[in-house]
């Protein structure tokens, strides 16, 4: 049976992981390559690299890092951040990314998703949506959650999938960083309208939050988190052992 995926997300700026982490057996806690290897060896099913670099120099460093990671880590690698054209797709795919996630780029340029899906296949195109409740509705936010686009999120995500996105990362700004659990209400609304994998992001604070997610929403395929993994609050091995006990399909 296909398993539920656990995905650590690494924010990378100027070639370094933002928010240094502290693990034993990890010499350089800010090295994306080292951290990626660590997670791969310790049960991560996939990795997300998010490029938060602003400068073009930093972008070059990022692709070098990506190459070095793909040389050493043999699990799927999704790359996001600053993807605004098919040229950006090409840039990261040629360095070993398997999937590319688009966010603000898809809001600004509605043809980006269909063009990329045609060139590289839907399996390669991930729509990553930052969503927040505004006056009782779900709105899509751009620029790392800073700008309210006013766009109704659920219909917009469905449209992205209809246009060729093969996977959805739903990041709830409302629950992000709160560590009280994933945004089940928002996730349910998305699962109801798409038939591609949905990855839950934002709000995980402990193992129970993942268990609650997968039990409540069979349509969710993966749970993504950053700081709770980086800071060692949740070890992926412990999380997966618990999923097994709870009869959630998992790769051990």
């Amino acid at each position, binding site marked *: *049976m296909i*398993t539920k995926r656990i995905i650590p997300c690494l924010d990378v700026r100027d070639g370094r992981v933002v928010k240094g982490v502290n693990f034993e057996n990890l010499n350089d806690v800010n090295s994306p390559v080292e951290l990626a290897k660590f997670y*791969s060896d310790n049960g991560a*099913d996939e990795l997300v690299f998010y490029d938060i670099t602003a400068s073009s120099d930093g972008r070059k460093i990022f692709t070098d890092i990506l190459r070095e990671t793909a040389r050493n880590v*043999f*699990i799927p690698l999704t790359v996001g951040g600053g993807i605004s054209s098919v040229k950006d797709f090409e840039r990261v795919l040629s360095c*070993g990314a398997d999937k590319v996630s688009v966010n603000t780029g898809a809001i600004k340029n509605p043809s980006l998703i269909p063009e990329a899906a045609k060139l590289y296949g839907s*399996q390669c195109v991930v729509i990553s949506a930052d969503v927040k409740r505004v006056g009782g509705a779900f709105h899509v936010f751009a620029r790392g959650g800073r700008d309210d686009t006013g766009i109704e999120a659920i219909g917009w995500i469905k449209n992205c999938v209809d246009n060729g996105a093969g*996977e959805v990362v739903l990041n709830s700004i409302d629950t992000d960083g709160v560590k009280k659990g994933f945004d089940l209400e928002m996730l349910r609304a998305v699962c109801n309208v798409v038939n591609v994998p949905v990855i839950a992001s934002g709000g995980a604070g402990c193992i129970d939050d993942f268990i609650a997610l997968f039990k409540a929403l069979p349509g969710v395929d993966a749970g993504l988190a950053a700081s709770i993994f980086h800071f060692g609050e949740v070890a992926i091995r412990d999380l997966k052992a618990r999923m097994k006990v709870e009869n959630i399909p998992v790769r051990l």
Partner: protein
Amino acid sequence: MIAIVDYGVGNLFSLESSFNAIGQDVKVTSDPRDLREADRIVLPGVGAFEDAAKKLKSSGLAEPLLEEIGTGKPLLGICLGMQLLFTKSYEFGEHEGLNLIPGSVRYIGEVIPAGLKIPQIGWNSLQLGARSEEAGIIQREGEYVYFVHSYAAFCDERYITATTNYGAELTAAVQNKNIYGVQFHPEKSGNVGLNILREFCNV
């Protein structure tokens, strides 16, 4: 030397890296001479069957590839590269493959229950197939590998070395003499995948 056939579909960086990681001399190539010099050949592929089949034929690599396989040289087809080994595919019409293994490639929606997501994306386990008693490249039952596919191969069970369950039994790995194929991505399947590539390097 292992030759990875570069006929213009998909990116081969990870695949090349995975062979490097297991200490193999590997070359991504579109030169027929490399196929002749290689000890083993890998046929990769992502995207659509028709486009890939056309590109393989127009690349001038299909004929030397078939010649080399005819001499008994081991071949490994991966994902769409595996699907190309079959007689034909019904992906958006009807298209001819290399016909190295009798069988066809069809939409998984024809056999899996409604409501399951297509493509199958993620880690699923391998069940050894009918001919697994022969030493193939899939050695162990129940190991997890990474799949991304909407189509699968349908063929006589004597060619099937492993299946995976996605609401129905789908072909995960095949073998016909020196010709091997895997539907999943060994280069993205962690140590399990690297071990499968190692096995291929030992056949």
